[in-house]
């Protein structure tokens, strides 16, 4: 019966091409706008940590003094990073910050490139489930006894070494030789959740160097440095000892007990720091946020996006109301034919089904064309505004979602007209017209 309805629907659509086009246009534009804004929203709203999301926690500490910041800051100081590393409660943990260095090789013809790098502990890769193509992270020992070792990403390995297994080879970072211990597979989480302070949709770093090297190599901070206190910072040692917030700190806690234990450890730490004159605020506290919370805390999804999604859903509703009116007109015009079908033995349910199939077909076309609109508008927007690709790539889910939403919303819009037509008394329309 479904195919019969499909056939009837197709005939009906062809019979009033202008009206059908108008309806398809209405729903496709609604879907196009909705999918466009939903796509940007969803891409910004993705939780790239996946199932690890609830086990990874960003640590924040309210270390500021009185009469300074009101709220807890997203970053922490180097001295706190240094102290937090002493706890062994977390399964994995790593302090980190962003830096950058000039990259050179043994090859004299290689033009030096300036490359962002992440300074972190060896746990970084395990924490964020980063997969290795060759080699591995530097050893745990390096976190304590600094060594000139580096992990690079697949694509950088390709640029510098032509893609071969480069483990054991040397690259020069700011003219210092570093031994490559591992090459990771392409890894570029979006949003870049492990450090959202410096552009949540910027690319991830392609080099990773040991945190323990920071005091020796004096890696500069390429991120936000937030100060609540005026301090004369001249040397790198000044900076390490300062109250400036410029590090991020992540821990992995697998069980609620572990979380509880770690929280307790943190509050003890704060008490202890208060004794030496830090953490002056009476309400000084530590805060743990898992990835989902962390993205929310940092407003990774701009409010504009939410407003757009809201308005575009309203827009879709307008399109549907528009379609509802046209459908009603179209269906009621067909009342005599429906009267004949009813007389011949079609039940109300069959008439209803026939019309819902027709609406569904219109919805499907609307969805497909809407998807094209969305794809087009996203391409135009991304070209015109140089948006990050991560935001304008039409998500896989949208290919299903767009026709799905289109059909579903068309069916909702079709309910009333289909009900009206199937519940009219057939005998009224059977007398000679």
């Amino acid at each position, binding site marked *: 019966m479904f195919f019969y309805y499909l056939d009837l629907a197709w005939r009906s659509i062809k019979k009033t091409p202008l*009206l059908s086009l*108008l309806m398809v*246009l*209405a729903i496709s*534009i*609604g879907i196009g*706008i909705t999918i*466009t*804004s939903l796509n940007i929203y969803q891409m910004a709203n993705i939780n790239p940590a996946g199932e690890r999301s609830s086990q990874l926690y960003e640590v924040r500490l309210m270390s500021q003094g009185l009469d300074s910041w009101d709220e807890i800051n997203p970053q922490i100081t180097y001295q706190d990073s240094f102290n937090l590393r002493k706890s062994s409660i977390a399964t994995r943990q790593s302090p980190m910050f962003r830096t*950058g*260095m*000039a990259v050179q090789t043994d090859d004299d013809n290689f033009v*030096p*490139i*300036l490359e962002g790098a992440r300074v972190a502990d060896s746990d970084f890769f395990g924490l964020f489930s980063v997969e290795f193509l060759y080699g591995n992270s530097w050893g745990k020992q390096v976190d304590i006894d600094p060594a000139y070792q580096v992990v690079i990403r697949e694509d950088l390995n390709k640029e510098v070494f032509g893609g071969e297994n480069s483990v054991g080879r040397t690259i020069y970072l*700011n*003219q210092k030789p570093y031994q490559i211990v591992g090459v990771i597979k392409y890894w570029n989480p979006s949003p870049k959740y492990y450090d959202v302070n410096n552009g949540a949709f910027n690319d991830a770093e392609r080099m990773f160097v040991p945190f323990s090297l920071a005091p020796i190599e004096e890696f*500069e901070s390429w991120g936000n440095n937030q100060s609540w206190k*005026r301090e*004369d910072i*001249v040397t790198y040692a000044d900076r390490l000892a300062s109250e400036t917030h410029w590090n991020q700190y992540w821990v992995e806690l697998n069980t609620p007990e572990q979380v509880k234990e770690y929280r307790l450890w943190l509050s003890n730490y704060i008490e202890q720091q208060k004794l030496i004159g830090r953490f002056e605020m009476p309400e000084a506290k530590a805060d743990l946020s898992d990835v989902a919370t962390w993205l929310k805390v940092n407003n990774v999804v*701009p*409010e*504009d996006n*939410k*407003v*757009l999604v*809201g*308005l*575009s859903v*309203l*827009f879709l*509703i*307008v*399109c549907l*109301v*528009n379609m*509802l*009116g*046209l459908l*009603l*007109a179209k269906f009621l*015009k067909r009342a005599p034919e429906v009267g004949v079908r009813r007389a011949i033995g079609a039940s109300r349910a069959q008439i209803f089904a026939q019309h819902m199939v027709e609406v569904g077909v219109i919805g499907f076309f609307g969805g497909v064309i809407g998807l094209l609109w969305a794809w087009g*508008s996203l391409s135009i*927007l991304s070209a*015109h*505004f*140089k*948006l990050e690709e991560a935001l304008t790539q039409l998500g896989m889910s949208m290919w299903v979602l767009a026709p799905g939403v289109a059909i579903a919303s068309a069916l909702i819009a079709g309910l*009333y007209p289909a009900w*009206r037509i199937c519940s009219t008394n057939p005998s009224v329309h059977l007398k000679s*017209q």
Partner: protein
Amino acid sequence: MLQIKPIISTLRHNKSGPLLLLLQIILSVAIVANASFIINERVQLMSRESGLVEDEVFDFTVYNFEEGVDYTAQNSRDMDIIRGLAGVKASTTSSMTPLSGGGWSSTFTYGQSEETAKDAPQAAIYYGDEQMVETLGVEMIAGRNFYQSEIESGHPNTANLAIVSQAFATVTWGDEPAVGQTIYAGGYGEQALKVIGVVKTLQGAWVNSSHLDNAIILNVELGLTSFNRFLVRAEPGLMTELKPQIIAALHKENKNRVIDGFTMITEHRKRVYRDHELMATVLSMMVILLLLITSLGLAGMVMFNIERRTKQIGTRRALGAKKRDIVSFFLVENYIICLTGGVIGALVAVQLGRQLMSVYSLPQLELIYPIATVVGLVVLTTVAVILPARKAAKISPAIATRSV
């Protein structure tokens, strides 16, 4: 002849069609009013003056990775090389680039004594030399520029003279002249900075900050780290020519550095306002499409009604209705729906605006927007109705006498 009564009774008999149109108009007005309000707000944001000659200024960065370099001395040498290039009108080292979204900012204190000291508002800090004013192309409206001899080198804490933006001066000292005042970096009395000049407009780097117009230029040629930023002013379009020259000249001086990031201020502006422009563009698209769909829906409805009422129209014509009367019948019918929908829609718009304001950081909707939308809607209705209705007026009165 306005025939409101029969029209209303017609509307009451066929509820669903007009009701749907009404709902559509209500929603359209609510969306269009709020969207155009937001668009206008963004357009105004984007049209604020930065005070710069934006199409003549570009920035770039130098990263010295060789160990043991005296950054201060290196910067001075680089500065001379850049200024020596043909086509460079003016150039300076700078702690930050206007409209770039990143840079330095701080609060200052001022006052007559420690007890009466007050915090001046947050301001962007440009560390640079005597060519900063000329490089940016900002207009001096009081006091004077730095003399070359007054420029310090190296650490930011060597600064002692300041040129402030008019906006900063007004917020801080009101009507009092700014030139001659002293502000302190940090607490009262720490690192005094004497204000020697005022520029008309100079914006900072963060366009979404409420302190965007507060900016201060301090007399230091920075030279503290391996990373340094230069601002260059040249004729529009000359950056592409100067870029390779600058890279070559600086590499000739010292090969061990990365010279990168050449960007016009106009590009910085585009990038930093990108989200606002995006929002305005998408919303404009939405408004246009919405109006299109609403008017098509309206026209479709009128066409359908004409078809359904062919006989009625023929009868009316047979009874002596002029063509004009038929058109006005449809017009009045749709004006009633459109105005009712418009008024309710305007109320919904105000309510929606309130919700948006409370949930998101959007300003309160101004009343003129829903009103303008309703007026626009009336115009749209007229066009969408008159076209098909004129066709209806052509229906022959003879139709009435036929039975089929």
